[in-house]
């Protein structure tokens, strides 16, 4: 058992039903080397202030629930350790660019709508039945999309994206990366339905390749790459529709 030290955790608190504006409250939290920021928040909830509200579930960077801003950086609180911030105090805030439901809990509705808009599921060329058997893929075909398929919808990329901050119409990194994921899947034939999202001003063209989305992604999805590869597809689609007006375009 490692030595116990004490760190100051400054938390944003906001209850829209009670408070005029968000404010900060500081807690003294004893911690050991193996304690994550999430465990620090759980300590506060269990021992200091039961009203502190935050989302969490798996505690191992799989569920994507515990994203928050720590010292203004979007991180998964289960994946960051208090020992790395000590002796400085840490400031914990809800993910940027989203409305606050309460304390560290944000309203994800905007993202969920955008996720739905990219048709985030396989669209088969022909309807399949169980009699058709398994839909086989080679390891190479899996490799084409596997990186993008790692997304856990934690929304750190939306909190990092300055374009989403400036303009909430922008479809955003995770949704556009998932769009690329399904387009890259050999079992999918839904590219054409997704092209309207890609081609729009608020689609890939809302991105100016700041690239912070890819830096903060805890699963190394690289949304910036996905988006900017789709700029090439969108450009081809833009010009080719003049050459093949009946076969393409959207």
């Amino acid at each position: 058992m490692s030595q116990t030290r004490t760190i100051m955790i400054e938390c944003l608190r906001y209850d829209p039903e009670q408070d005029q504006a968000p404010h900060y409250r500081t807690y003294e939290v004893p911690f050991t080397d193996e304690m994550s920021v999430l465990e620090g928040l759980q300590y506060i909830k269990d021992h200091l202030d039961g009203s502190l509200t935050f989302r969490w579930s798996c505690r191992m960077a799989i569920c994507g629930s515990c994203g928050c801003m720590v010292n203004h950086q979007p991180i998964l609180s289960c994946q960051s350790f208090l020992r790395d911030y000590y002796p400085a105090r840490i400031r914990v805030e809800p993910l940027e660019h989203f409305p606050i439901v309460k304390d560290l809990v944000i309203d994800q509705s905007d993202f969920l709508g955008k996720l739905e808009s990219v048709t985030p599921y396989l669209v088969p060329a022909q309807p399949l039945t169980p009699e058709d058997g398994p839909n086989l893929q080679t390891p190479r075909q899996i490799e084409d999309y596997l990186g993008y398929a790692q997304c856990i919808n934690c929304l750190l990329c939306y909190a990092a994206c300055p374009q989403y901050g400036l303009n909430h119409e922008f479809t955003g990194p995770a949704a556009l990366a998932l769009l690329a994921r399904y387009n890259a899947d050999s079992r999918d034939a839904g590219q054409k339905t997704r092209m309207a999202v890609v081609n729009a001003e608020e689609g890939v063209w809302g991105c100016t390749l700041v690239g912070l989305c890819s830096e903060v992604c805890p699963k190394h999805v690289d949304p910036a790459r996905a988006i900017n590869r789709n700029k090439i597809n969108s450009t081809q689609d833009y010009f080719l529709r003049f050459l093949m007006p009946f076969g393409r375009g959207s």
Partner: protein
Amino acid sequence: MRTRSHEPIVWSLFGAGGVFAALLGTMLVLIIGILVPMGLGFGPEAMHYDSLRGLFGHPLPALGLAVVISLFLFHGAHRIYHTLHDLGIPASKKMMLACYGSAAAGSGVALLLAGMLVVF
């Protein structure tokens, strides 16, 4: 209903300009800025007016020069337009006109001068 963005037009000019800036730009800086002044690999006559004037008196090199200058300008204009947006200055029609308009005007001047090099 989503409307299709027309950005592919300027983005392709931006992309082409970026490729030229990375490949040709660095090479030109190396040759004109370092190798020729230091007399490395090039004789003193390489940058003489007569030899350069002779080269760009031919239509193809003259056109190539104008196209490269134009793409550099569009690359810069696109970057400035989006950087201003990143800095919180909202993208407007006026700003778009100022950025891409000056690149288009500069391209026109480059083409005109290239034409004059060939004709006169």
